[in-house]
């Protein structure tokens, strides 16, 4: 109880920079959940999404961010596989952007102490880098949409195996990048 009171008292120390970043986390999580959710949403589900989106903003360093991202992916799969929805390119790109922004803003919020005095240049540089990544991903998405025949590709078994090997190699590469000295 004493700890909880101390935490509530500490809330008064929060500064503008970390609050802004946590706000971005919340907006990205909520928008992403709305975009990924299938069909028309009942009001109760909206409330659930609100609560779900607040958790990563409160604890950006915890596992909640991963869970919300996985929820978004699961809902996207459910919408497209179970309900057979045909999402527009705009919705697809917006969901991808929300997924990335949630991850990226949470990564920043996790390393910013909540009561820190933050230099504006830090936030500006972060925003520019995020915009660059989103721009590059957007170009890649348009290229994929142009090259590939459609959203669904029927693959032969050989292509499936090759694809899986490529994915495994990509994941291994990313993991190795993080771990190498």
């Amino acid at each position, binding site marked *: 109880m004493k700890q909880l009171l101390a935490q509530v008292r500490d809330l008064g120390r929060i500064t503008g920079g970390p609050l802004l970043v946590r706000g971005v986390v919340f907006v990205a999580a909520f928008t992403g959940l709305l975009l990924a959710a299938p069909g028309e949403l009942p009001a109760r589900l909206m409330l659930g999404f609100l609560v779900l989106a607040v958790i990563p903003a409160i604890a950006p*360093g915890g596992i909640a961010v991963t869970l919300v991202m996985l929820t978004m992916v699961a809902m996207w799969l459910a919408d497209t596989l179970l309900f057979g929805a045909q999402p527009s390119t705009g919705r697809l790109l917006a969901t991808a952007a929300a997924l990335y922004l949630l*991850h990226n803003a949470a990564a920043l919020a996790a390393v910013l102490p909540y009561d820190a005095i933050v230099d504006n240049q830090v936030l500006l540089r972060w925003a520019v880098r995020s915009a660059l990544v989103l721009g590059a991903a957007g170009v890649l998405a348009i290229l994929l949409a142009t090259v590939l025949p459609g959203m669904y590709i029927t693959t032969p078994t050989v292509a499936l195996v090759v694809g899986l090997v490529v994915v495994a190699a990509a994941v291994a590469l990313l993991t190795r990048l993080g771990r190498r000295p």
Partner: protein
Amino acid sequence: MSQGASPEGDLEPVAAADTGENWSPTRALGRAVLVAGLLLVAAVLLGRTDLVILAAPLALSVAFALGKRPRALPGLRLSTVESFPVEGGDLGATVEVENRDVTGYDLTVVHLQHSPWLRLEGGSVDAGPSRRGGNRPYVTLVPRGVATAVELAGPAVRWGRHWLGPASAHAVAADGLLVSRAVVTGALGVKVYPLTDPFKADEAMPRAAGLVGQHRSRRPGEGGELAGVRQFGPGDRLRRVDWRVSLRTERLHVAATLSDRDAEVVVLLDLLADAGRSGGIGGASSVLDRSVRAAAAIAEHYLHRGDRVSVLEYGAQARRLRPASGRRQYLTVLEWLLDAHPSPTAQERGGAQLAAGISAAALVVVLTPLLDARSAAMLAGLARSGRFVVAVDTLPTDLTSPPVNTWSDVSYRLWKAERENTMGQLGEHGVPVVAWAGAGSLDAVLRDVSRLAAAPKAVLR
């Protein structure tokens, strides 16, 4: 200003440079790889391009961020401006973070711990006044090959030896995917001198000694104070001749003066007990605060007039500063006062023992809150030993007792009445007790003490 040779606390990153242990991945890296991997696997298994597009920004960001990763730790240096602040004076500190790596840091989080009596606030980081200060971390950008300084400034609100530091910093790179080990500097010592209350005493010293100084003595000699006019005698200087009287009386007369002498002042600090809560320079003051500030003021006043001043401690440590005069002694007294702390002790010397180390001609100014019965006994003992003692009451006037029960107020009033009784008894024993009130505090009692000094006295030997 620092304790030690260097005013800077500097720590080079320790040994582990160029090893992978300096930087560790954050949870964000694992999250990005997990979600991107799952999306890509699902994309291949289900033959879906939309999942590839969903995974693309995550995978791209990890590859983009980790393409060039940092290796060395940031350099950190803590320094302070070499100055001698008094209470309320400004102090400046700089924490410098250096990036000696091949890639820029996204941000560096700098923590600076310091004494609560140093109200340091960030000056270089843009923030509103309400958000400043209060031992907050500072987050700053450190590009490649550049050192960024976080400058802090603010007043030191209480006298004493304060600590500044240690400062610590950790850097974040690769879009928050990697975080460095913390680099920590050493701490610096900062001396803040007490602000001297305005103090002035115009009255004569009880017994001046020596041949130089500014006090008029009761002995004739070269000086500025006119004692009378007498007939010219051998040895008198011509410039002393009073021509008007000489013409009138037709005999040579000279103006006789009293010699100017210096005196020894002993400031005795009673550190047996402390009371009240210190609120710094603008707030409430404790007994110790009042004692130290009053001691500094008294020492400054008498040293400025050319007297010899020594400072003694009545407490467990029993420190003693030898008598001396001049500006150097004033600085020594201030330095000595920085180490004054309440030091209760079970066995303390009596007044007679203390008097043995005090010159018989010295004026003893005892700064005491009279909270301990031994303090009153010590004062009486000093007076019995023939020393000229003035007690200055340093108990804060706004001191109140915390209400514990219904009897608290009554018992507090009783205690105050008993204390006033003790003060009255001390007065009867020839120890005037006066409340500290800055300028002119001691004038009334010094007059009494001087009168007593002039009278014949029976002294216990």
